[in-house]
């Protein structure tokens, strides 16, 4: 166990080292994964809401599609995005390959199915009576949606947590479309990979601990938000 406790100490030393490179990497990870999660929420939650409440032919097939996409390996998504953004690819004119925006695109594609899938389940579990009642009270479609999403917010937050956790810890997509360029597109996961490759296991372990620590902090915040306003339900 000595290696792990040493790594925790090293991780703390890394955090207080004051090295701008360290903070840049952490900040870039949070920026990329945070933005990606946010964008994925904007797309994924409406999809989840729509799939959760509506009844139409082909809904089952769509849910299967979303659930399949939830399991897409990051490296596959990375490859798709790389092929599209490469200068010889269809979107090459945008010239954003190997930049943070490209990493965000890849992570949005990873997180959207996750968020959509989990929120579908959350929205579907809201009882039909609530919607009928809200409509009967004269609510508009938007007000109805707000009421349903409020009711299912625990599930929605779980979706956001799953989405963020999924993207901040993946390495396949960011390394493929970001290129792990030092000082430009290196994030925490690719830093771990790089340090392992050059035999710096100690440094890689401290990065791993920093990554875990940050995910814990973010999840504490999100879980607190998830559990706040519980009294509303009673």
């Amino acid at each position, binding site marked *: 166990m000595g290696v792990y406790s040493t790594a925790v100490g090293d991780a703390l030393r890394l955090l207080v080292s004051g090295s701008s490179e360290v903070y840049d990497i952490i900040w870039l990870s949070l920026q990329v994964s945070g933005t990606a999660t946010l964008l994925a929420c904007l797309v994924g939650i409406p999809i989840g809401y729509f799939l959760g409440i509506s009844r139409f032919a082909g809904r089952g097939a769509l849910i299967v599609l979303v659930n399949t996409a939830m399991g897409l390996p990051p490296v596959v998504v990375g490859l798709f995005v790389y092929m599209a953004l*490469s200068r*010889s690819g269809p979107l090459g004119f945008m010239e954003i*390959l190997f930049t*943070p925006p490209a990493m965000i695109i890849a992570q949005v594609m990873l997180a959207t199915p996750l968020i959509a899938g989990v929120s579908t389940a959350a929205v579907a579990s809201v009882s039909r009576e609530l919607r009928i009642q809200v409509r009967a009270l004269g609510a508009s479609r938007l007000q109805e949606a707000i009421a349903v999403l409020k009711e299912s917010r625990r599930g929605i937050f779980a979706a956001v947590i799953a989405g963020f956790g999924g993207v901040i810890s993946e390495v396949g997509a960011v390394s493929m479309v970001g*290129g792990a*360029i*030092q000082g430009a597109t290196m994030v925490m996961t690719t830093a771990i990979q790089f340090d392992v*490759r050059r*035999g710096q296991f100690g440094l890689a372990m401290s990065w791993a601990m920093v990554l875990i620590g940050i995910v814990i902090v973010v999840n504490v915040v999100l879980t607190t938000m998830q559990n706040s306003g519980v009294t509303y339900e009673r």
Partner: protein
Amino acid sequence: MQNRSTAAGIRQRAIVAIIVALVVALAIPAMSFAATRLTIKVSKASVYTNQASTISGSVKPTAAKKTVVVQYKKTTSLVWKSVKVKTNSKSAWKYSFKTGTTGSYDFRAKYAKATSAKKRVTVNPRTVVMLASTTSTQDSGLMTVLEPAFEKAYPMYDIQGLYVGSGQAIAYGKSKDADVLLVHSPADEIAFVKGGWGKNRQPVMHNTFMLVGPNADPGSIATQGSIIDCFKKLRTDSKEIFVSRGDDSGTHKKELALWKDAGYAGYPNPSDWYVKSGLGMGDCLRMASEKNGYTLVDRATWVTNRPSDLKIVQQGDASLQNPYTVIEVVGAKQPAGGAAFSTWIRTETVQNTIYNFGYKKYGLHIFWPDAD
């Protein structure tokens, strides 16, 4: 009554005292600010983001030390790079200096404009030059030395390195996602240039490959005469584990050539003894160490990543040369940047840097310069 008026008087006096204290508290810094005149001189009005520019400042009257805050404004909000500043704060940088002294500051604020009360420095964005190279150049630490040196010599360029296997690096050249390549896979390089994807292929440096294996050498490979014999023995015995890169990298291609030289048509099939790892060199070396097996390794990775339970089994053969060349990508996004890197890395100064790289730390030369 008497009591009440006394109380009122005390209250009044207290209020006056507080106001006076506030005025004094506010006035002291304000006065010192007014009395301290800052003059900032900037040696150049326009610099590139990584170019050092001298800021000389004087503070009057003689304050012992003063922190000068110069703010920059973003000139574009095109990409996130616009807010990337290598300083202690994102929106302002501080450079503290003593009266009468001169300080210099690296303007690393990309796409930013530095302003001060007196002078304004326009920080020009640098042109990104994409270099695709192999993991061995990064993992050995060579590029950590060369990248900043290139940017110092050419302040208008921001070199960004993609460190992958030679196969992938050449693919980045074909898709024109890289501007210049620094690779070591001769046959592929020739095909790359012949196919019209690259031009101006020039030797830069070389190191050597070597066969490494367990300290105990269980397969008695070290006693074989030549590297070809070693490969023959490994394959006929099919007993000792051999870890192959298996990733189309330069080292992997070299391994294929050695099997061919040993009289075999292709690779051994993946089996109990022949492991196709698909990993980078450092990982592959560690796998050989964990599995108590043999592997072909380049000198740079060996010197910098040596596992203690492995030793050199065979080296020094002329066929084990590992030449690195620089190739400019045809139709690159930044052809001028690629050409500049190609020219620069072959200059005498840089060739000397390459030769001396790692000598202090490891007592061994890792790369030998090859440029004319």
